[in-house]
Each structure stands twice: as C-alpha cells, then as structure tokens.
C-alpha cells in the first residue's frame, strides 16, 4: 500500500511509534536570525504547519556549533532542551562519543558566521568540510543516514560535485537548497508540467554568491518542469553595471519578462516621491538600482534563463516565463515573510524543515538533489563570469539532466 506523506507523518507522530529518528545538527553559528537558529529552533520548538503547532516526529539529540559570536544562543537552547547535547566536534556530535554513528539523520547548516572571502567574492562557508567529516563517520561506522544541506552544496564546484558523487556512491539520501522553491507563492501557482518554455526569468535582489543562488533556485524549480525535464546548461554569462544596462536596452533578455516579474513584486521602491506603487521606467531603474547583476544562461534544449539582481528596486523573488503557445506570460512571486521589521519569523524555513523531516522519516529525497547541484554550479559559473570580465563561459560540467517530481513541493497547505 502506498502511504501518503500525511499518513507517514501521522503514523510517525504517534506517541508509541518506535524509534523516533535521532537527528544531529551541524551549524556554523546559532544566533538570532542565523540559518542555524531558524532551522534548529524548528526541530526544538516546533512550528506552525498545516494549521497546527507541529512538532517534528523526531528528536534533535546532538548539536555542533562552529562559531560562537555575540548573541550566541547555543547555551540557552542546550539548557532548555536537555535532550540535545552540544559536542565540540562534528564526529562526536554524530557518534555521541560512542565512536560509531549514533544518529538517523544529519542537518548541515553552513550559512552565516565569519569565514574568509576569496578574491572572487565567495564566502568560504565550510559546507564541504562539514560534509567530509560526516562521510568519514559514515565510512568508519559502516552505516549511512540522510543528510540535508542548507543552501548550495559548496561555493566550490569541484567540491559540490564531489559531495553529490559521494552521496550517490555511498547511497545515502542527500537534499540541499534554498527555501525559495518550497515557500508560499502569490499567486499560489505551480508551473505547468511538460510545456515548452521559450524564456524564463527571475527578478530578485541581494548580492553575488549569496541571494543569486536563491534567484537561480527560484527559476530552476519552475523550468525543470518543462517538456523533457532539465537538460543541463551549456553556457553562462554574467552582466553587471553599465554592461547590464547596455544588455537591457539591447534586449539581450526579454524586458517584458522583467516587467511581468516586477508586476508580482510587493516591494517595488516608488520611483517618484508621493506615489506608493508606481511602475518604474528604465531610467528610473538605472537611478534606483546601483549595482544590477544578471546571469544569463542557455540550457541544452535551447531554453534561455536569466536571473537578475535588482537590489534597491525590490526586496522579493519574482518569476516569469514565456510558455510556447500561451498568449499570457506566466508569473508569480515566491513569497518570503522576511523578518525585516514587518514579520518576526522567517517562516519560509518551515517548508524547508518539513521536507527535511520527510526525508529523515522516509529515507527519500522529496525533490531532486540535481536541482541544487545545477544551481550550485550556476552560482559558481556566474561568479566566475563576473570575475573574468563578464565573459560568456562554456559549462560542459553542467550537463546535468534530471526530471522534476510529479507532485508539487511548494507550500500550499
């Protein structure tokens, strides 16, 4: 009998359910609004889900925290949740000091904290290093368990690929990525399956080697549903500053898709004083957006996608696409209730944690790891193109083909 997700969760949530999975979390830091806090707190405190205050049907028993900045919450959480022990090393967190893997799932959160930046502007978050520690314990214990990796796999493509290959070779479920693919959408639309897509666009905000990854995931979780599935990416070219505006005016990418995406924004900075919601002209955009960035890339089946960072103009993630044979453009916003004063909870972490829970309970990846392998490679290629003077770079290593899930995995319930 095929169980639905809800049935699986319901059965696992029963108090007599044997062997609640034991989870270890490895985080770079644990302070207010760090990814570590958003994610680990949801396991400890529960979170609003499906009209309930949901408590994951598992126990977070071990925590490793790499850095302890001002405002570190590790001690507070350890005290309030005595079932969770804090360990000084990753190996000890995974083995509970027994010398053998003693958990049933691992949550790796290598985002935030003080880590070196390289000459390309990439922050060297130690996700690969943490991952290597994990697989060392897996190997020595002769047992593997599911791993969830927050955000991209690594800033370094070779390492990311190694992480992917390792998971596949050692046969453990590995999920990764951003909250953008799984958060609310306004409107709450799924991209139609099996359609031919002519052009796709994400217009968002933030910095290079940071929110660019979220923008790429936003576009990728949609276009992977097109006819044939994902076919891989042949080349990437980045545009920035003057080059960006030149390309914009030469319509290197369809500007009507930018406009459609902007029409989904809830945070369009008014181009004129005294107006609260006015559509900007290109001249307005030039004035408001100081450092625009675009990554434009060609998929192997001919689709062109563009990810645009328009910091200063908007603070949200908007997707648009031209679907063959459809008169109207497709568009939606991947809505983040960002705790920037208006909200207090970054609840877009809830669907991310929920999907990790499903994997820990079922041993199955709920959406394709290949998506995040590709967006990891696209992020690195975009950064590299910027570094090499905005050159178009061939990306034979990104010939990553995969199929989307049949079922929608974004937040609708």
């Amino acid at each position, binding site marked *: 009998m095929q169980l639905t997700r809800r049935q699986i969760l319901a059965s696992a949530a029963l108090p007599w359910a044997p062997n609640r999975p034991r989870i270890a979390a490895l985080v770079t830091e644990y302070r207010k609004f760090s990814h570590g806090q958003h994610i680990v707190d949801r396991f400890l*405190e529960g979170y609003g889900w499906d009209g309930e*205050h949901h408590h994951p049907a598992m126990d977070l028993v071990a925590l490793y925290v790499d850095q302890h900045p001002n405002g570190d919450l590790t001690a507070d959480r350890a005290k309030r949740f005595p079932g969770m022990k804090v360990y000084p090393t990753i190996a000890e967190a995974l083995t509970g000091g027994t010398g053998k893997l003693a958990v049933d799932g691992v949550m790796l959160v290598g985002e935030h904290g003080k880590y070196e930046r390289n000459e390309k502007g990439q922050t060297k978050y130690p996700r690969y290093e943490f991952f290597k520690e994990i697989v060392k314990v897996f190997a020595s214990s002769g047992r593997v368990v599911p791993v969830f990796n927050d955000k991209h796999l690594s800033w370094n493509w070779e390492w990311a690929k190694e992480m992917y290959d390792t998971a596949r070779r050692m046969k453990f479920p590995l999920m990764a990525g951003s909250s953008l693919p799984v958060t609310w959408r306004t409107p709450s639309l799924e991209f139609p399956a099996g359609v031919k897509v002519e052009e796709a666009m994400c217009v968002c905000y933030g910095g290079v080697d940071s929110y660019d990854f979220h923008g790429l995931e936003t576009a990728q979780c949609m276009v992977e549903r097109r006819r044939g599935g994902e076919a891989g990416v042949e080349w990437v070219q980045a545009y920035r500053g003057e080059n960006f505006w030149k390309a914009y005016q030469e319509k290197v990418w369809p500007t009507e898709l930018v406009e459609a995406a902007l029409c989904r924004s809830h945070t369009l900075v008014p181009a004129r004083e005294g107006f609260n919601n006015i*559509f900007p002209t290109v001249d307005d955009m030039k004035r408001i957006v100081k450092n625009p960035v675009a990554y434009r890339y060609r998929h192997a089946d001919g689709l062109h996608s563009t990810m645009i960072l328009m910091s200063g103009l908007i603070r949200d993630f908007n997707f648009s696409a031209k679907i063959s044979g459809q008169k109207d453009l497709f568009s939606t916003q991947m809505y983040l209730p960002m705790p920037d004063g208006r909200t*207090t909870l970054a609840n877009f972490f809830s669907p991310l944690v929920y999907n990790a829970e499903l994997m820990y309970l079922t041993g199955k990846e709920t959406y394709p790891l290949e998506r995040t392998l590709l967006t990891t490679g696209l992020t690195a290629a975009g950064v590299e193109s910027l570094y090499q003077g905005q050159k178009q770079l061939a990306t034979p290593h990104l010939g990553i083909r995969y199929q989307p899930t049949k079922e929608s995995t974004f937040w609708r319930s």
Partner: protein
Amino acid sequence: MKRIAIVSSIYRYLSHAQHMGDRFLIGYPHEGKWHKPDVQVVSLYVDQKPPGDQSAERAKEFGFTVYPTIAETLRCGTDKLAVDGVVIICEHGEYPRNELGQVLYPRYEFFKACTEVFEKDGRAVPVYNDKHLSFSFTKAKWMLDEARRLQFPVLAGSSLPVTWRLPDIEIPLGSQIDEALMVGVGGSDPMDYHALEAMQCMIERRKGGETGIKSVQLIDGEAAWKAPYSQELLIAALSRSDTPLGLTDKDGRTQDLVRTGELKRLVAKPAAYLIEHNDGLKTTLLMLNGAVKDYTFAAKVRGHGTMSTQFLLTPVPNVTYSACLVSKIEEMMVTGRAPYPAARTLIVSGMLESCLQSRQKGGEKLATPHLGVRYNAPAQSQHARR
C-alpha cells in the same frame, strides 16, 4: 471609457484615497501585468486639506478638476450628473470620535450628497464606499436602502477579503461551518472592522448563506480569555502567523503561544467579540495586541476539518492588497455589477457598532434583532489568486 469621480476625506501620501485613487491614475499590478484601468478620473472632492495634501498636484498632472462640493464634483461643474461612477474614500483625516470610540467619518453624508444628485438629475451610477458604510447601522442601512430605491450598484468594504491568503484557501460554498475564529490586531474601530469583515467573507459561504446576527457581546480584558471560543481554532489561527512577539522578537524562536501560556503574558488587553448568528453559528474575533501583528482565521468546516489561513497584508508602501480592491471597484464601474454584496459590509458595520455598545455596557450580551441582514455569498472566489 467610464468617467469617475473620487470623493475623499483627504488625499495625502499613504492615505486610502491616495493609494487607491492613484491606481486609477497610474495603473496597478494585476494578474502579472501593470494594468491601465478602463476608467478615467475626471473630478475629485477632498473634505480636508492637511499639510501634504496632493489633490491640486494630482489634478494638474492628470488633467482633472478638484471641486469644492460633492455635488459639483459629480456634475463636473455642469448642472447634470457628469460621471459614470463614484468612488468614496472617506478614511483618514481629522474627525471626532463618539462615546463608543468610533471615528465619525462622514461616509453617510458623502453618500447622501451623491444620492441627492442622482435623484435630482434622474440618473444613478455605481458607488464604491471604502471600508464600513457608516459607524451607525441605521445610517449604513439607509445607504443601501437608498441604493436599492435609486437602483444603483454599491460595493463597499475592506481589502482583507480580496487580498492574498496564506495558504490560498476558500471555504467550499454551502459548507456546514461549526465554528469560526478570527485573530486581529490594532485599534478600534478601524482595525476590528477589517478583522470582522475578513471573517465574514469566509463564513458567509456556509450552508444557507448569511442569516443575520442574533446577538453580540464584547468582553474586554482578562475576562476575554474565559470567553467561549475554541482553543483549537485559536491554535490553528495562530499557527498561520508570521509575527509572534515576545520571545520570538527576543531571539527569533518559533512559539506555540497558546500551549506555553505566552499568549496571556503578551496580551495586556485582550478583547473577545462574540457574534451569534441567526442560524446558530457562533463566531469570535479575538483582538490580541501584543501577541502578533497579523490577521489570521480558522474554522471548523464539516468534511474539511479545521481550515485556517492568514490574510496577507503586503508591505508598506506598495500595499498591493489595495490593488486587489481597486480591481474590484474597476470591475463594478465597467460592468455595472458589484462583484460581491455590500450587504456583507452592512452586517459588519452593524455587528461592530453593537459590539462597541456591548463594551460600553460592561460586556453585556446584546440581542440584535435589527441585524437580520440575509444575503448569499458570490459563487466565485473574489480574493487574489491569479
């Protein structure tokens, strides 16, 4: 192209008249496009001109006239009604409050000035009235009776019923609803009105439609916690909140506000608005200032379990939820049909007034035989979902 008049209290940055009125002038985001409305603003009335008044500058830029009276605004300086629709936005501005704490916005007076023109000139056109019809049910009822007598469509109310929902749910038409609860925040009487109307747009879809209000009771302070609302629905509604305060504000943690007891510590002055409908349905609005900052809803719907959602109030300054409302106003101006019944706003205007009277009488339960407003919900969903 339909010609419309805007009749407003004030036209200043971020006043309702500005953020709604401007959309008719410069367009607004709608279904993934920047929609240029099929209507033209030809005249404007502003009741007050506070510092920052924008009426003259808008008139100059967009080529319409600001008239000193409502009648002249509707007649555009001629001797006959010269517009195809009127948008009354009487929210914000300096107006006194009465002993119930209601702001005495002259919506009734504005509306009456319009109907006088309609009657004298022998033609009536669609009217949108922003927010509740009036602080007084008697006046509100007169407004809709007058509209029926003169045979023109009226649309009214808040933007909460038409904004995005998280998740995007709709109560199936004709459902059996066993109980409903709304959580709101903010002051009375602007924000409790929004919350009551948000709840009303959900429960009016129940079997038999709206049957009117039998009684209301507003319990203030500690006693509100003892009101007979469902704890389960409160948990469901709050599970939809993105804005728990207290410990979440302090260190970012998620919270089960009800079961941890934090809710009662955070809300210094809770208020429970208890509404009993003629068909027996009991609904509750809890105003929970200090605990959250958003508007959430939950109901027990037979065959569907507990349904819950958040009415998304999108960020300032765009307040794109008002674009959702303006598209409904435009729809009425263009088609001559109100997409949803103003009776909803009438009944909410009345239940709010009676609730405030109950509060004034120390939380006494008040029978409301005058609120026997019956109507049916529109079959089509009206909120933002495309």
